[in-house]
């Protein structure tokens, strides 16, 4: 159990505090970390709270990019007009997390660094191609979110000496759309059986870019390039979407779980959710409705 709780006033201050106290770790909303502490999964002496650092909760558009602070909460993200308009997949993912209390406390940074494969906003950030900025005393690095994973529950961000300060999502411009789909046994307080986030761009009637992220079907959010490839250069018809969904289903490797659902079911659902998310994203990208009957 921690003996000390410190509030950092800047990222540099945070790094200094971490360095000064061996066995220290940073804490944001604490909605994952406090549970780990209670269950004795981590031995931590000092907690360094980052939620009062000015600027760490920023949500803004700058030079064709969306900037999201590492400590932006799910409530902020899901209610932000900017995010709802420009990155609807992320807004929907944030709205799906836990319950109002959890969303008020839980943050994007925590969702990513906790490194669970089906963390909702992490899945959306991967699909959006978000890049994380990570500070340590030696300097700064920029890493795409999907490259931050080392295994289930293991992040390449070391929260005992590093801080994830922001996510940057480049806007693709004309003809882009994103969407999020989720299957869960109830509407609140429910980790997903399966979630899918997609981002596409359509230029002159053809899909030019696509990113499809599916979870939990692998040890980390699964960026399914096989499915994205099916779409590139194609007109976004129901038939093309169905083929992409089939490719996603073939590539997905969900586990059998009595709690979360069987592998077979979740494989089938991969196709359904990918279809639904792509249909919504393409509709947003093109302003046209796509008939879903081939689903």
């Amino acid at each position, binding site marked *: 159990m921690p003996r000390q709780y410190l509030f950092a006033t800047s990222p540099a201050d945070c790094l200094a505090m971490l360095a000064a106290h061996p066995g220290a770790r940073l804490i944001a909303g604490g909605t994952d970390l406090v549970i780990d502490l209670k269950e004795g999964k981590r031995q931590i002496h000092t907690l360094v709270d980052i939620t009062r650092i000015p600027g760490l909760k920023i949500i803004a558009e700058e030079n064709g990019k969306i900037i999201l602070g590492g400590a932006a909460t799910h409530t902020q993200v899901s209610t932000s007009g900017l995010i709802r308009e420009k990155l609807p997949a992320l807004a929907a993912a944030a709205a799906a997390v836990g319950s109002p209390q959890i969303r008020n406390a839980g943050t994007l940074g925590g969702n990513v660094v906790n490194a669970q494969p089906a963390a909702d906003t992490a899945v959306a950030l991967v699909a959006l191609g978000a890049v994380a900025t990570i500070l340590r005393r030696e300097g700064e690095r920029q890493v795409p979110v999907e490259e931050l994973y080392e295994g289930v529950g293991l992040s390449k961000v070391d929260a005992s000496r590093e801080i994830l300060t922001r996510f940057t999502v480049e806007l693709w411009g004309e003809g882009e759309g994103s969407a999020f789909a989720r299957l869960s*046994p*109830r509407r609140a307080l*429910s980790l997903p059986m399966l979630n899918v986030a997609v981002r596409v761009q359509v230029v002159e009637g053809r899909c030019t870019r696509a990113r499809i992220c599916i979870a939990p079907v692998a040890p980390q959010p699964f960026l399914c390039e096989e499915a994205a490839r099916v779409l590139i250069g194609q007109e976004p018809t129901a038939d093309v979407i169905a083929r992409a969904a089939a490719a996603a289903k073939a590539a997905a490797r969900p586990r059998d779980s*009595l*709690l979360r*659902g069987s592998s077979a*079911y979740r494989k089938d659902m991969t196709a*359904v959710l990918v279809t639904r998310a792509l249909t919504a994203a393409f509709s947003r990208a093109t302003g046209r409705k796509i008939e*879903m009957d081939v689903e």
Partner: protein
Amino acid sequence: MAYTVVGKSINRVDAVAKVTGQAKYTGDFIERDMLVGKILRSPYAHAIVKNIDVSKARALPGVEAVLTYADVPKIKFATAGHPYALDPKHRDKEDRTILTSKARFVGDAIAAVVATDELTAAEALKLIEVEYEVLEPLLTPEAAMREGAPLIHDDCERNILSSYGYEIGAIEEAFQEADYIFEDELETSIVQHCQLENHVSCAYVDSDGRIVIVTSTQIPHIVRRIVGQALGIPWGRVRVIKPCVGGGFGSKQDVCLEPLTALMTLAVGGRPVRLELSREECMIDTRTRHAIKYKIKTGVSKDGKLIGMHIAAISNTGAYASHGHSIAMAGGTKFRILYPMKALKYEPLTVYTNLPVAGAMRGYGSPQITFAVESHLENIARKLGIDPIEFRKKNLVNVGYVDPLNGNTVRSCGIRECIEKGKELIKWDEKKARYKNQAGTKRRGLGMACFSYASGTHPVGLEMAGARIVLNQDGSVQLQIGATEIGQGSDTVFAQMVAEVLGIPVDMVHVISTQDTDITPFDTGAYASRQTYITGMAVAKAALEVKEKILDFVWGMTDIPAHALDIKEQNIVYKHSGEVVMPLAEVALHTYYDTVFARPITSDTSNNARINAFVFGVTFAEVEVDLKTGKIEVLEIYNVHDSGKIINPQLAEGQVHGGVGMGIGYALAEQMLFDEKTGKPLNNNLLDYKMPTIMDIPDIGVAFVETFEPTSPFGCKALGEPPTIPVAPAIRNAVLDATGVAFNRLPMNPQRVFEKFKEAGLI
């Protein structure tokens, strides 16, 4: 009858105290230097303790006592919250000791510690060293009944706890007479009450050397007896106090913690000890709802009359008997009044397994059998091509019907009106027509299910209730009841009854909500939906007696004969004209202070209600089913109840809301899961156990068909448990209507639904 207070939605008498946090629950009972108890639980579903070493735990500073199975009385006792049966043949199965050397489920209590604080107690548990011999875990009734399976309790062959059933008429003859025979197999899952307040008890020894237990229970007087039995001490040496309770739903109609808490205080020289379960513990080591499998065979005539039904049931009762034997029987009894038929044979087997103990839970066996029978009848109607509502209507009971086995009589019955009302509320005919030819991936459908239930347990159980009323010096009254308020609102309806009889406002009735077995009149407790009906009789009797004494006293004061007087709006009035004779407060003062005639007025009444009243009702549900994912959404749901006269409509509606929510969870999501090899619980927490949240429950429509039940002084009947009973089959029947796929297993969660759709070739 024209009532002034009964039938009104007055505020709960405890509303302000509860909303402002002033109400005191067991957890608020704090004594100086209170110690903390904790339980060491078996990690194995079936194992024998070969060796246990507690020396390290005992040596830990702050540990005040360590108890193991070796330290508990060698007395087997039963935990079910039933009145004591004078006839030994009718007693509950005595199959457990307070701590055990044989673990019968993962979580069984092997040892316990008492320490100065939580952390020390938790630390001490880790220091207890136990060596187990692991036995084969028997996780299903089939495995447990297998020839040669190890015995969970030595005296129950093939692990069958009981097989008591019945046959009305001659079933084989009925089948021969029938034009059609239909068969179905259906099953339900293990679910948990999930009441807000976890189980908690505190105990200490008072200055007279008696054990005082403050506990969150539905049955204080029964707890007193069972603690006495379990400890082998005179029952009078135990005093049980029940403060506010945060819900029970049956899990507290059982004696789970109190004997151990009592033993803990004895082990530390009578110092106060608190034993409080975490949610995770509560979900495995209190009680669950029985999973039951049914095989039903039914004979029907050409014109849609039910001729005979044969129901075989296998009920999974878990590691200890608790209410198991009695639930199989109660479920098989209360449903049968709804559709009287020539022959009915019921053959239940209640079987021990190495899973958590199943016990009483809202509906006490009826949600299970009603799911089975109402699903089965729906299947039959569809096969016969008869409208399912018409089919049910052809077979419904009428007023005057007498149950052939227990002699209970239907004296009021509004089931037909309930059905009509439900049809109208959900716009049955209009929507049925609209949903006739659906295509696409989302399909809608309508379903309904009926139920019957009883008000209390007569004639199987004793229906004793006590009430005590004192007329205070200001004309207000004090009301004490032995019946327990556990959140359902019973204190409020009793206050309304007293106010009605005595002609005073409800705020002049001071209800003593806490039960204390030293002080409170005897009542068996909150279960079987009995209190408003059964305890209401005692309350009315006491109030009438007080009224009679008041009017007699006025007769003495005024020479106006009592029979010419009445009490209205806190005044003594002439019965015929309403003219005021004098204020009640003046009479009250005289009863205390008249130097010659003073005689404070009280009543202390018990009522042995050797009677029962049947209740009826129906759920109508509209669902939308996503064929692609198997997800079912309840769009609209209506419960219509015949619970006789409704004493407090708003409280009644709240009761129905809670019951329907519980039913929706039962239908679609809730299920306790265990590792299929080891029996370890997988979801004994509220994140992984999918109880519906407020976001998952649609607006719930509630309506009442208010019949007047002649056996109740206010015409009321049971409402506590019933709202849960018909919900799951109504939803199941709506899914059948939407998709043509007949589900036979709960819960209908997306994966199961999807798999079944695949199997049925729908997708």
